[in-house]
């Protein structure tokens, strides 16, 4: 399993049946393909969809129906379509149960940076600020370190923040961590990695309270 596959497989079990969930651009939008076909969830896409579902076969694909990342999607029974003001009213009124979101950096306080790398990458804000600031529960999906092996899970974010103190849980390719009063608490980790190894790849200080282990 690749790092991405490990994250996505684990992410599936974060979704409570019957809930309303937004999947952010990047890794999170891929979660939809890991869900059982009959799973009871309403996927919100900020471009105006409640009830987005897996991409249809090419012959049934609707060119007028994409998710916020541009990928063609289908609709479930009971889906609704609406304008961008209503879509963000759903977000700002906290009618989403969960948002899964990507990160450039996330820290021990639950701060999130995922929209801008000054001087290198600033394609815009998109829906990230409102999702991060207003959703009841935010789960970050991220590789534990960047491509150069540097920690993405920090003591304090250094990049411009998307939203302060908003993240509830981080799912990386190595571990599942909760943002708690005492900092990051490791709930699960790969069996093949030791506590010390995980800490070594994490700038934030970790507390270990693993209830078992992932494979």
């Amino acid at each position: 399993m690749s790092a991405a596959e490990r994250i996505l497989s684990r992410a599936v079990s974060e979704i409570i049946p019957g809930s309303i969930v937004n999947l952010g651009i990047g890794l999170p939008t891929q979660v939809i393909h890991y869900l059982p076909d009959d799973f009871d969830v309403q996927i919100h896409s900020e471009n105006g969809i409640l009830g987005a579902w897996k991409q249809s076969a090419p012959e049934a694909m609707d060119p007028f129906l994409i998710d916020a990342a541009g990928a063609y999607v289908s609709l479930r029974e009971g889906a609704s379509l609406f304008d961008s003001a209503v879509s963000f009213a759903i977000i700002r009124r906290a009618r989403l149960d969960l948002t899964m979101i990507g990160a450039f950096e996330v820290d021990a306080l639950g701060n999130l940076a995922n929209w801008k790398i000054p001087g290198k990458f600033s394609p815009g804000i998109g829906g990230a600020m409102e999702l991060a600031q207003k959703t009841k529960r935010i789960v970050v999906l991220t590789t534990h370190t960047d491509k150069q092996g540097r920690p993405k899970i920090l003591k304090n974010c250094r990049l411009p923040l998307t939203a302060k103190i908003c993240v509830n849980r981080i799912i990386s390719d190595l571990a599942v961590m909760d943002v708690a009063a005492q900092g990051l608490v490791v709930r699960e980790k790969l069996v093949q990695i030791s506590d010390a190894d995980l800490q070594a790849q994490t700038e934030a200080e970790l507390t270990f309270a693993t209830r078992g282990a992932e494979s």
Partner: protein
Amino acid sequence: MKKNQTLENAIAAIPSGAVVMVGGFGNPGTPFSLINELVRQGQTDLTLIKNDANEPGHGLSRLIENGQVRKLITTHIGLNKGVIDLMNQGVLEVEFHPQGMLAEKIRTAGAGSFGFLTDIGIDSEITRPEDLLEWQGQTYKVEMALPADYALIHAAQADGLGNLLYQGSAINFSPLMAMAANHVIVETPDLGVPGRFKPEQVHTPGAFVDSVVPLESLTSDYGILEHHVRR
């Protein structure tokens, strides 16, 4: 049907220097035919307002690549490296807003109001001290309304009174922009007679619409983008 116009006449109403809203989120809802005519006519010094810049060689991107645009007010242009480069080179001025704030600024203009009080981004670098208001013991960020001279809209269906229906994820900013612009130009592949719609199901009442341009067919612009098909 006085609202039934040719592509050429409808777009000729737009002068250089105009502020123009353009519907669409990615491809769906982008009024490619109206945009392509604006490229053909060549008005310059435009300020454009759209969720994104479409993708290179398509839609809004063509106006920018063609040097007709002074400023872009948008939320995310991550799928258009060419436009990001023009921004980084200082050729194109770009103003970013959180997506829901852009929608709400447009909708506020569309409601005939002048601004609204929010807390979105209030703790972030997008908020300047001069945007903050102390009011009745609370601190808010003031977001001002964003109106426009013109809106370019794609509707799935229309009637001769200018009533509009959208489809799929192509609704997005279109009904908001139709309210917010002083002059609203709509393209549709399906223009019919008044009475064809159930009155409750009209997305944009004709009162907001100034011209409707019937399209004989939809060009390949409106089709599937292969790189967004999952392999």
